[in-house]
């Protein structure tokens, strides 16, 4: 998957996890937490959805890498290189 495709995946997941949030103006370089009302349970769900949908395993110590869209896509790029869209 390309970084753009990964970005779409994350947007998709965010839409499911937080359906009331407006994602149209989401800034990639600002932390999700500072733009959206996401709590720690919602963050866990991002990890869980990635595992469920794409079989991507993210160890607990790497959870902080998912702070913003930019850092998330960067972190996932090598992990999802060979994953089909």
């Amino acid at each position: 998957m390309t970084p753009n495709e990964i970005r779409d995946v994350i947007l998709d997941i965010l839409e499911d996890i937080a359906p009331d949030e407006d994602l149209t103006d989401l800034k990639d370089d600002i932390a999700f937490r500072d733009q959206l009302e996401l709590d720690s349970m919602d963050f866990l769900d991002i990890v869980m959805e990635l595992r469920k949908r794409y079989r991507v395993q993210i160890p607990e110590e790497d959870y902080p890498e998912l702070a913003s869209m930019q850092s998330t896509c960067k972190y996932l790029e090598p992990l999802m290189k060979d994953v089909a869209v």
Partner: protein
Amino acid sequence: MYDTIIIGAGMSGIAAGIRLAYYDQKVCILERHYTIGGLNSFYRLRGRDYDVGLHAVTNFTPKGTKKGPFARLLRQLRFRWEDFALSPQIGSTIAFPGVKLDFGNDLELLLSEIRASFPDQVDGFQAIVDRIVDYDDLSPEDYELSARELLAEHITEPLLIEMLLCPLMWYGNAREDDMDFGQFCIMFRSIFMEGFARPLAGVRLILKNLVRRYRELGWVLRLRTGVDRIHVQDGRTTGVILDDGTELEAKRVISSAGWVETMRMCDDIDRVNGRKAGQLSFVESISVLDKKPSELGYDRTILFYNDSDKFHWRRPKDELCDVRTGVICSPNNFLYESDDESKKLPDGIIRITTIADFEGWENLSEEQYRLEKLKWYDRAIASAVRFVPDFRGHVVDTDTFTPATIRRFTWHDNGAVYGAPHKQLDGTTDIENLYVCGTDQGFVGIIGSIISGISIANQYCLRS
């Protein structure tokens, strides 16, 4: 071999099951009773539907609210706000002799009532509000500090302290006399800052939503299937043994049966030592009326009464019930959406709850039990009608349940309604892969126990 076995198909157990099944775990929920719900269940009697445990759903927040337990629950279980069909309360009241305080789903009303009746306490009350810690910020160290001491720091009128504690203790204090600061914060938020609501169809709707979601995800819910023992070996559980002797293996077990009740099931050593089960249980009398309460001039959703200046929150020892205080709930008095009569409750209903002594009730003979239920129905109502219109001439049917009933259908020790006084906030036990959720983990009420199941499942069964 299951990934997780969940003991108990109450709100917390089913919620935990949904989270685990949603993320593809092999889950099995085991329930000894022939129906779901546990402390918050429902039944049908003589052609009418009744709720167990539900007066109102607390923690109510309107559609679009993003913060708070209800919003979190909806996101975590992937429900829409509409799915719970919650109609807000009309309004509730705390009634002590000579003074009453109304409150609603907004702190403003309570604040203005305090301004009117206790004008010199307004600043103190505001200081209390500022001290209320948010749910996620409660630290285990601060949790068990004394709520009474905190209140006394800011409020100099003892009567106001008693009046504020009354509804908070009624809707969720497992301790006698005083309240944990942590629990005080949780209840203060859920009752005074968030508020009450109810689905027209009652508990039934909520449970059906939960079970349907769980079943859609394809996993197992077994009723009439009691767990006899939790098998423990070298500090770990390997699974459970059912009442009929069948062994079920699992990588993890979550129990909503209660702390002491769970420890008792562990089969390696005797674990039932210091920690005590809850002491607080209730008698609840339900009266079906030939008129709606509003036709009798009564519009209160919930009325918490106390017949002296001092509020007593303690299991009665000399009598089967303590009618000095009580909760009067009218399920009709919610803002159900329509003017269409068929979209309202068919009958007028008034529920009266009093604190009761489990041991006393449990030890009665069958005949005595029947007679005492009648007697205490009369006494509870006689006590209540000092605070609400006398509806006794309008009663067409009644039902009463006691601590023994609660014990019989939930298997919680002492018929305890809010669990043990000491909570296991982190949900762990000394057995590595055995966890507890539900009232003894710490969150009570419908929303609270659902959040409890979700939290424990998330924390120990989903993280890598």
